[in-house]
């Protein structure tokens, strides 16, 4: 099929363009401080990619992506915190060798679930796996019983609320409302230096582009078509011999694992993790990044994460009282006026004009092509 190879090539081209933007253009154009900010925004790109698969394609709206972002971030933070809490560094504590906030809360031994995080390998495996496992448990419980749509959204939101309350309430084990702070080194490498930040920025960018390519592969496989088919005609897919629940669980776990990676990269670049990235509000903001960019476009969603976060920083610096108005209006506008987000605007208004401009080179492509892509995506 010439059509699909052409499309694949175009999509990959756009991804490469994005890679050039974040790996060449932005690092050259921005000062280290701003670049670090962009790095932080890009960590939400992982969440957005997951949401495109899970929400845009499969139609499962999770209002709990903050849970997974947070879990990934906490897994990373726990490792870094343990490294920062060596016996030597904490000898003034009444129990040396445990994180400072535990000592403040009269805890005298490292809790069992903290112990494995002495190992970097364990932490790196846990970053995607812990979120995916929780998503798996939730997914099995919900999807096997055919719970979906708004119910699922509410339940995930409730779980986000529970986790936040739990983290804040159990401050001896979690660092409470302040989170896990004062992270310094990874295997002796100081993550706070400008040089380290630059390295981490590029690591993050490479991981993000890799995630984009993997997600692109998933969407172009038969699995991707089944997810979309399931969203439209769940019963038809089921009665074509597919275990619909298994596909939903996969989509949800995939999104959770990506969000976890995003969270870990966030912790590394920002230097702490706290419950304020876990709860209901951040979770729903993640959905809006994705919606603004375009819930059915991988790149759109990532650009959305960049744009909304950049706007948030700008607004909250200059006009904090306007931020909620702007955000609220954005929510409503994205739903009512442009449900396909920035990607939809690009597709409907910019791409056709670009196409007309580039027509001579593109004559070879079948004519039905643009329309087909528009409708299936």
């Amino acid at each position, binding site marked *: 099929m010439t059509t699909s190879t052409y499309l694949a090539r175009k999509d990959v081209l756009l991804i490469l363009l994005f890679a050039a933007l974040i790996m060449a253009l932005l690092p050259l154009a921005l000062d280290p401080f701003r670049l670090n900010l962009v790095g932080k925004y890009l960590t939400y790109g992982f969440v957005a990619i997951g949401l495109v698969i899970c929400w845009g394609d499969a139609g499962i709206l999770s209002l709990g992506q903050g849970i997974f972002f947070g879990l990934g971030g906490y897994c990373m933070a726990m490792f870094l915190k343990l490294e920062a809490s060596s016996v030597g560094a904490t000898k003034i504590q009444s129990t040396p060798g445990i994180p400072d906030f535990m000592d403040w809360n009269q805890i005298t031994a490292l809790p069992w679930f903290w112990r494995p995080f002495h190992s970097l390998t364990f932490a790196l495996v846990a970053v995607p796996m812990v979120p995916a496992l929780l998503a798996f448990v939730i997914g099995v419980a919900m999807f096997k019983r055919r719970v979906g749509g708004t119910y699922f959204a509410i339940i995930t939101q409730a779980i986000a609320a529970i986790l936040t309350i739990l983290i804040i309430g159990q401050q001896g084990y979690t660092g409470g409302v302040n989170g896990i702070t004062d992270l310094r080194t990874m295997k002796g490498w100081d993550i706070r230096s400008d040089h380290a930040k630059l390295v981490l920025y590029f690591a993050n960018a490479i991981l993000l582009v890799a995630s984009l390519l993997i997600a692109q592969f998933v969407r172009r496989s038969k699995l991707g078509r089944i997810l979309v088919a399931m969203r*439209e005609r769940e019963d*038809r*897919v*089921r009665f074509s011999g597919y*275990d619909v629940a298994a*596909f939903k669980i996969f989509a949800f776990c995939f999104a959770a694992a990506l969000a976890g990676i995003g969270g870990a990269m966030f912790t590394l670049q920002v230097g702490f993790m706290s419950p304020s990235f876990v709860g209901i509000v951040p979770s729903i903001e993640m959905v809006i990044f994705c919606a603004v960019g375009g819930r059915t476009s991988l790149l759109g969603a990532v650009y959305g994460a960049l744009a909304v976060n950049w706007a948030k920083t700008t607004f909250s610096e200059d006009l904090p009282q306007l931020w909620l108005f702007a955000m609220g209006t954005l929510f409503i506008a994205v739903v009512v006026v442009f449900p396909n987000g920035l990607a939809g605007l690009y597709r409907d208004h910019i791409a056709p004009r670009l196409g007309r401009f580039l027509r001579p080179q593109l004559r070879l492509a079948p004519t039905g092509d643009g329309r*087909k892509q528009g409708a299936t995506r």
Partner: protein
Amino acid sequence: MTAETNFLLAVEGLSVSFDGFKAVDDLSFYVDQNEIRVIIGPNGAGKTTVLDLICGRTRASAGSVTFRGHELTRLPEHEIVRAGVGRKFQTPSIYEDLSVFENLEISFPRGRSVFGALAFRRDYLVRERVQDVAGMVFLDGMLGERAENLSHGQKQWLEIGMLLVQNPLLLMLDEPVAGMSVSERKKTAELLHRIIRDRAVLVIEHDMGFVADIAHRVTVLHQGKVISEGSLAHVKADPKVVEVYLGH
């Protein structure tokens, strides 16, 4: 009661109630290999519910459904499909956004697990099967067309084609000719007779002309019970059937 294994499908003592209302009540019937069986009955007789019970969409409160000697009532839907039962819905249920080819391809019985679907490749076996089936359901020239652009009758055929790609041993069709023109109905009847080799078809239909064209045997349902069964001529002459259709 044990099902005799020479039946393709044996439904015995099947019951289900909604909210105290017995939609299907102690129902039994048997379908042979190579048989076209039509279920008729007035509205609300429980015809669609019977199909739902067989394919697992609704869970029976009592009774058994035995298919080639295997009990179906406890299996999840996709396992029932994989056992060889295909189901077409009353209103055409196809993927409007996908092409006819892709619609048929999704039903191809390979790569049905999550990771199988990830690894699925469109090889010549798939193309060949899709081509064959498209020919059978009168859609060979339209493989590249978006399913949305098909006529109503063609959509019905496409859904039947999606079942055929699965290669089921039992096809269950809920009003397959609803909304079709007379000539389309004729073609559909021919299609059913052609595909009946190596399988059985269970059809719900109201259109008596079409029933006469296809039915080997007819089962008449009323208030969730079988009130008559046999050839079309036999059930038409049955006073109980006449009473149900003309009485009250």
